[in-house]
C-alpha cells in the first residue's frame, strides 16, 4: 500500500471578506497524480501556495511527508517542489546556475548527470548558458520543470504546467509527469486543460468557491453523476460545478 505524502485537513484561506479556500481536506499518496480542477477563483492556486509554504497556515493543517508545514517548515519544504503558473527564474543566473542553486538548496548529491539529462529531455541543452531573463515563457516553464525534477522530490505541485509550451514540450512534460509519479512521487496537477487532467490524473479533486465538490477517480465521478455515465471530464466538471455550493457536491466530496 502506498504511503500518504500529503495530508490536508480543514485548510481555509481568506482574503479580506473573500473566502478563497473553505475547510478543504484531502490526501495525496505516493505515485498518485491528483488533478485539481475548478473554475477561476475556486481556490486552486491558494491551495497550492499554502501547501508550498508560500502562504502561512496554522499548525496541524498541512503535513508533507510527515512534517507539519507550520511546525517543521524546512523539512516539509525539502520534500516538495512548487512550479507556479508563470515561473520566474532569477534574471541574472544562467540556466545551468539555476540547477546548481537548486541542487544546493535541496542538498542533491551527484546532480550533474541528472541535470544534463533533464536539460536534454526538456530541450534546454543549447540554452545552458542563457540568462533567466532571456528565456521565453515556454523556456521558463521548462527550466522550472528541470529544477523541480532535480533530486528525488516526494511531492510536486504544478499550476498550469503546460502553458507556453510547444507541442513537443507538452509531450515531454506529460511524459515526465507520468514518469515522476511512477518513481513514487505524488503530483498535484492544477489545470484548466481538462483533457490533460483526464489523460494524466489518477484521482480528481474538483473545487468550487473554495470547497471540494468532488474527490475521487474518474470512474467514481461517473458513478457520482449518473447522468454523465459515459461523459468526459469536461461534462462531469460542468455537472459538478453547476450544483449549488454548500451542499457538499457529489458523494465523493
Amino acid at each position, binding site marked *: 500500500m502506498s504511503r500518504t505524502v500529503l495530508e490536508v485537513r480543514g485548510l481555509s484561506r481568506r482574503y479580506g471578506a473573500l473566502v478563497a479556500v473553505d475547510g478543504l481536506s484531502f490526501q495525496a499518496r505516493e505515485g498518485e497524480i491528483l488533478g485539481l480542477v475548478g473554475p477561476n477563483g475556486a481556490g486552486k492556486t491558494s491551495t497550492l501556495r499554502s501547501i508550498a509554504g*508560500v502562504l502561512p497556515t496554522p499548525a496541524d493543517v498541512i503535513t508533507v511527508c510527515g512534517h507539519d508545514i507550520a511546525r517543521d517548515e524546512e523539512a516539509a519544504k525539502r520534500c516538495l517542489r512548487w512550479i507556479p503558473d508563470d*515561473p*520566474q527564474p*532569477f534574471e*541574472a543566473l544562467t540556466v545551468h546556475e539555476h540547477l*546548481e542553486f537548486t541542487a544546493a538548496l535541496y542538498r542533491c548529491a551527484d546532480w550533474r548527470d541528472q541535470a544534463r539529462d533533464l536539460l536534454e529531455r526538456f530541450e534546454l541543452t543549447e540554452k545552458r548558458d542563457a540568462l533567466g531573463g532571456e528565456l521565453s515563457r515556454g523556456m521558463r516553464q521548462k527550466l522550472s520543470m528541470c529544477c523541480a525534477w532535480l533530486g528525488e522530490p516526494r511531492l510536486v505541485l504544478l499550476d498550469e504546467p503546460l502553458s507556453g509550451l510547444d507541442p513537443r514540450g507538452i509531450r515531454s512534460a506529460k511524459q515526465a509527469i507520468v514518469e515522476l509519479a511512477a518513481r513514487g512521487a505524488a503530483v498535484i496537477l492544477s489545470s484548466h486543460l481538462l483533457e490533460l487532467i483526464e489523460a494524466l490524473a489518477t484521482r480528481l479533486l474538483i473545487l468550487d468557491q473554495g470547497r471540494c465538490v468532488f474527490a475521487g477517480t474518474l470512474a467514481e465521478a461517473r458513478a457520482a453523476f449518473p447522468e454523465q455515465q459515459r461523459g468526459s471530464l469536461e461534462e462531469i466538471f460542468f455537472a459538478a460545478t453547476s450544483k449549488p455550493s454548500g451542499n457538499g457536491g457529489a458523494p465523493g466530496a
Partner: protein
Amino acid sequence: MKHWLEPAALLLLRLKWRGFWRKQWRRVRTPSGALLALLGGALGTLWLASISMPMFRRGPTRLGADEVELLAQAALAVIVVITLSTSLSFRGLYVPATEIETLFSAPLSRPTLIRMRLVVALARSGLGACFAGLGASRLGSSPLYAFAGAFTAFLWAPILGQGVAIALGGAENRLAARLARAPHRALRIALIAGLLFGLVGLLSQSPDASQSPARAPLEFLRQVAERPVVSALLAPFWPWARAVSATGPEEFWPAFALCAAILAATLAVVGGLRVDFRETALATSADMARRLARMRRGLGAGGVEARRLPLAWRTPWLFGRGPFGAIAFRKTASILRRARGGLVFGGVVIAVLTVFASNWSEPAGGGMRSALLVAAFGAFYLSLGLRYDFREELDALASIRSWPLAPWKIFLATIAPQIALISLLVTGGVLLTLVRANDLDLRFAGLSVLIGLLVATWVCIDNLAFLLAPTRSAPGHDGVLQHMGRSIVLALLRSVTMAAALAAAAAPVLVCVHLLGWTMESALPLGLVGAAFVLCVEVAALIAAGGLALARFDVARER
C-alpha cells in the same frame, strides 16, 4: 557550528553577484553599449571627483571638532529619519515578486531570507556610504576618520530601517491588517512632519548679526541641540559623530569600535528576528511589482494607478468621434483617470508663476512682459513635467501600429491631448496675468497661438526622439551607466533640435530688423506672423517625421 547564512543562500548570492557583472560585461561588448557606458561613467566619475578632490587638496578644516561632531549628529539624525520613513513604506521584508514564490517555497529559514536581504542591503548601501564618506571627509579634522565614521553610519541606517519594517510587519500579522497599517502611516507622517518642523524651526530663528554668515547656522544648531529633548534625540548618534570629528587615534578608535559593534549587533538582532513576514511580504511585493510595472510602462516616476472618476464625470471626445478622435479620447481618459496629481501640480505651477510674474513686472505696461514670462516658463516647465505621450505606450505599440489610421495621424492623435492640456494651462495663466494687469487685448490671441505651436514643437521633438531611441529606465533596470550616457546624448539632441526650431522661427523678425533695417516695434507684428508660419511648417514636418518613426518602429527590438 551553524552558518550565519546557509550554504544554498550564500551560493545564490554569489551566483547573483557573478550574474550582475556578467550582464554588465554583455552590455559593454557592443560598440554603442561601450560608448554610452563610457559617457555615463565619465559623468559619474566627474561628479565623484568633484566631491573627492577637496579631500586630498584641502587645507585644515575651518570647523572645530565640536562643531563637526554636532553637524554629524544632526545629519545622521536626518538620514535615519529619512531611512526609517522609507523603510516603513515596505511592510515586512521586501522580496522581488519574481523571486518570492521560489524563495518562500524553498527550504530556507525565515532568518536566512532576512539575512540574504541584509547582505543585499549592505552591498547596495556600500556605494552610497562611500559617497557619504567622501562628503564627510571634507568636514572632519582627519579625512580618513571622517570617511570611516560616515561610511559605517550609512551602512547601519538601512539595516535599522529593515529591522523596524520587519518588526512592524510582524505586528501587522498579529493585529488586524487595517489596525496595524494605520500606525505605519501615522509613524511615517509623524517622522516626516517632525523633520520638517525641526527644519522650519531652525530656519525661522533669525541669525545673530554679529556672527559670520558661515558660522551662524551652526550657532542655531548648537542652541537647538542644547535643548534637553533634542539633545536626547541626538545622543544615540554620538559614536558616529565622534568618529567623524575625531582629531586623533585616541578619539577615533574607541568611537569607531563602538560604531562597528552597533552595526554588528544590529545585523545580529535583525538577522535573528523570528517573524512570519510572509503575508506582509507578499502584499508588499505585489504592490511594488505593480508600481514598478507601471513605471516601466512609462507611467511616471510614481507609477500612478488609474482610478475611476466619479460617475458624473465624462471624458470628453475632444477631437471628434472618428478614429483620430477615438485615439485622442483614449489618451484623454488616461490623463484624467491617472494624472489628477499631475494636473493639480500643473495648476499650482501656473498659479505660482502667475503670481510671481505679476509681482515681478513693473506696474505700468508690464502685463505683456509678465504674460511672456508665464508663457515661456510655463510652456517649458509643464512640457517637461506633464508627459502623457508615447512613453506610456511602448508596450502597446504593436497593437497601436495595427490601428486603421495613417501613422502620422496616430502620432498626432496620441500627443494632441497633452499639447492641448499644456497649452490650455499656460494660456489660462497668461490670461489671468493679463487680466490682473488690466492689459488684455488682441495680442492675447496671438500669444495663445504661439504657445500652442511652441508646446506642439517641443512635444513632437520629444516623442520623435523617443520613438527613434525608445528606452526607459526604472528602479531595478540594468545598465544604469548606459542609460545615463544615452540620456545625456538624447537630451543634447532634443535641445539642439529645439534650439534650431526656435532660431528658424525667430528668423523672420531678425531678417526684418537686421537685414531690412526695420525697428523692432514695426517688425514685431509681421515677424510674429512669420514665426507662427515657420512653427506651423516645423510642426507639420515633425508630425510627418513622427509618423515615419512610428511606421518604422521595430516592436521586436530589445529595449
